């Protein structure tokens, strides 16, 4: 009995570690190669804190220095969690500037090897290569939990807690933000969200859970040994997550059971060679799985809930009509401008940009009038998109200034501009393919308490209410563009035209007064072009100021109040579209003769 309970405990430990790593790997799309180290950091911290003091051992400092501070196990567990979380934050500092996956791989891989070596060297802290032993077991009341069949309940509870935390976070607005960053960091930044902090938090939380498991494992086994926290174990945990299914916690549970049973099973058959065989088998399994079924045993989004179809993917029960949506959205919308009034909201002053010897933009000056649709037109290479990128802060201007409501916003990063009321879309849409249309739009909604971990923990019910409002708003934005009936579909299942509409809906959800659209109809079929035109017309009805870069004259004529004609990086004419198109020299420039 004890034998099986002991195996079950080791599987539960593996499962909890896997679940916590999946928060990082699945939702944030980042790999940590040092999960075993955070597990170990928790173990050593808890061990040192709970070991008896020198006085308790009779005042003799023993050779192995197996002494500590005689803490109760509960505070020791908490400190272990905190220490692991802080260690993760420190390690990821360089990753703040280099938010590219491979740098986190490099950093954590190096950290894994160095920290593991240090565990063997820093004998005053870790007891050297043989580690620490004699760690007191957990006491519940006056009963020490020593036997496996007693301790298994503690570990089971821990696994459940970890699953609840990771699942709760992953499926919350915070998890949605993580997935958004995973797929299109620049798009998330373009709707006003800081793309770095959530990832670091996910890394730190993931490490914190590993630290907690490490403490529990130390209490159970009574010893902590550096060789248990090796790179091989880190890779083993990664394998559990990957084989089970990245981004699917039920998959991790299955993966942990399958891989955790491997070792006891192999011990029966190959005896001493069980460990190398185990490693060869899961290494090979990793290779085969990634070649044949990269989504893992249970793909993301597949689980008991999905089988019953009760969460998220259901078509919305009530699809709001366009009028209802318009009525609700107009409460948050900017004031509608009365007819005849013309006031500039964005002023672009003498912007210049050269790429090497090429003058892409040579002193462009124009204004966007509040509540109007302004089109930037001109032949290819006129510098339209370059100007756009300079207004949005994605490209640094050589000279010139951009003012938003009279405030100088030149070179401000995208996410700050959104807070001031200016947002952009991308020519290549940058919608998150694996999220539903609704969740894509929800990413655009500002000031969501549910995107902050502290609020999720401290005020779970308030965040839930807020999330309802967010979803309603996202649905309204989709309704206004006529695609609310597809809100529950993954964006990858939508036509390209609908994807462009989703991107516009996401922009609308930001509540910014000024919306910049980069070629909203490029690559879109004619039927969808009509829908895009209708959609943008509704943005104007709501009082938004729209600026678009567009090639199609038909489109511009139907929609734009004003046009700014650019050629060779300079504004050569401004006026209504008809005025400009009636001027023969401009038409020739535009269409070529």
């Amino acid at each position, binding site marked *: 009995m004890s034998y099986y309970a002991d195996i079950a405990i080791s599987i539960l430990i593996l499962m909890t570690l896997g679940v916590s790593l999946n928060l990082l790997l699945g939702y944030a799309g980042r790999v940590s190669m040092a999960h075993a180290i955070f597990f170990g950091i928790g173990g050593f911290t808890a061990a040192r804190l709970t070991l008896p003091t020198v006085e308790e051992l009779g005042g003799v400092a023993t050779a192995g220095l197996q002494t500590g501070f005689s803490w109760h196990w509960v505070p020791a567990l908490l400190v272990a969690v905190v220490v692991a979380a802080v260690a993760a934050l420190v390690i990821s500092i360089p990753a703040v500037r280099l938010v590219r996956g491979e740098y986190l791989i490099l950093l954590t891989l190096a950290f894994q090897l160095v920290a593991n070596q240090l565990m063997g060297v820093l004998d005053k802290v870790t007891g050297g290569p043989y580690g620490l032993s004699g760690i007191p077991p957990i006491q519940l009341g006056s009963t020490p939990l020593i036997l496996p069949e007693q301790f298994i309940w503690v570990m089971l509870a821990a696994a459940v807690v970890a699953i609840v935390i990771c699942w709760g976070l992953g499926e919350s607005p915070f998890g949605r933000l993580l997935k958004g960053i995973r797929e299109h960091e620049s798009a998330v930044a373009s709707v006003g969200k800081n793309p770095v902090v959530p990832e670091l938090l996910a890394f730190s939380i993931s490490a914190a859970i590993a630290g907690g498991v490490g403490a529990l494992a130390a209490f159970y086994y009574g010893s902590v040994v550096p060789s248990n926290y090796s790179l091989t174990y880190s890779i083993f945990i990664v394998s559990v997550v990957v084989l089970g299914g990245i981004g699917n916690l039920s998959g991790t549970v299955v993966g942990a059971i399958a891989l955790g049973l491997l070792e006891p099973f192999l011990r029966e058959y190959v005896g001493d060679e069980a460990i190398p065989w185990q490693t060869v088998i899961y*290494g090979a399994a990793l290779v085969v799985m*990634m070649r044949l079924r990269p989504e893992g045993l249970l793909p993301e989004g597949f689980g008991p809930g999905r089988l019953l179809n009760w969460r998220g993917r259901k078509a919305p029960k009530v699809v709001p009509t366009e009028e209802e949506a318009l009525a609700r959205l107009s409460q948050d919308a900017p004031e509608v401008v009365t007819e005849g009034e013309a006031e500039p909201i964005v002023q672009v002053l003498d912007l210049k940009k050269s790429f090497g010897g090429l003058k892409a933009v040579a002193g462009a000056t124009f204004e966007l009038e509040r509540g109007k649709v302004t089109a930037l037109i001109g032949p290819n290479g006129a510098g339209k998109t370059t100007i756009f990128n300079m207004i949005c802060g994605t490209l640094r201007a050589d000279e010139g200034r951009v003012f938003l409501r009279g405030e100088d916003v030149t070179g401000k990063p995208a996410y700050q501009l959104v807070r001031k009321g200016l947002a952009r879309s991308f020519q290549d849409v940058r919608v998150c393919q694996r999220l539903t249309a609704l969740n894509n739009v929800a990413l655009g909604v500002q000031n969501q308490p549910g995107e902050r971990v502290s609020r999720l923990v401290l005020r779970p019910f308030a965040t839930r209410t807020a999330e309802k409002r967010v979803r309603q708003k996202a649905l309204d934005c989709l309704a206004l563009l006529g695609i609310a009936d597809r809100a529950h579909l993954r964006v990858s299942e939508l036509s390209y035209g609908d994807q462009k509409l989703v991107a516009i809906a996401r922009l609308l959800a930001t509540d910014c007064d000024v919306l910049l659209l980069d070629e909203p109809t490029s690559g879109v079929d004619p039927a969808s072009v009509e829908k895009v035109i209708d959609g943008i017309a509704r943005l104007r009805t709501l009082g938004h100021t729209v600026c678009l870069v567009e090639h199609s004259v038909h489109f511009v004529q139907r929609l734009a109040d004003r046009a700014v004609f650019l050629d060779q990086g300079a504004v050569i004419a401004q006026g209504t579209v008809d005025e400009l198109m009636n001027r023969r020299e401009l038409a020739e420039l535009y269409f070529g003769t």
Partner: protein
Amino acid sequence: MDLELLAQLTVSGLVVGSTYALLGVSFGVIYATTRIFHLAHAVAYAGAAYAAVWSADTLGLPFWPALVVGLVAAAVLGVAIEVLFYRPMRRRNATLLTIFLVSLGISVAFPNLLQLAFGPENQSLPRPDNPTYGLGSVTISRHDVATLLICWVLIAAVATYIARTRFGRSVTAMRTNPAMAEAVGIDGKKVYLFVFLIGSLLAGVAGLLFTAKGVATPTMGLQPTLTGFIAAFLGGIGSQWGAALGGLALGLISSWSALYLQVDYGPVVVFGAMFLVLLIRPQGLLGKAAA
């Protein structure tokens, strides 16, 4: 400060740093072009060592022919990983993360296969004499001199080949803009094959240099490969001389650190150096800032 000790540490740092430089270039050549975090690079390192030991032990080959067998093994293993695993995955538009996970699987399975086949114990080559020479108070062995020469001749050859020849420039083209490079008629597959071949050969040389003086163990590839990764990132991805400089710097730093710290702390110093450089100059020492 003890000047004699400093001189001796500098010499040994230069020798160790040269192998790190070689490893940095070997990983850098692969990574810069393919963007694959090729953890299975360790396979070429350890594979070369084991092939050489095996051909000396079982086939009874003398020292030099055994080294040739080792080199061939490194090249075959590296190219096989590209052709059998990475290439088919790229063709199916696998993400870099998925390809990395395959690399991870290979890198964890291979040393254990070695252990199952050859046992966990140390293996060594029948090695030629290794006399030492004195230069004042500093001593240097013949193996050290050979290491210095071999590493830097190979690094210079690879860097020159990539910078000066037509095919070498197509490697740079594939690195900077693969779609454009293929549009103007560069065979991407061939370039990938080339970087894996060259990278694995260099890793094999490093593995053999190590085994010619020390011993082969199943997990021998991991630590040096990681040092190579660090060297390449430290120096700046895409620059051969950068990676070489990064490796040399790592060797010197970890050797000099022995003045103040126990030898066991060497890797910690290396990690610290990487941490600082990534913090202050993320694009690496000789790297160009990302656009």
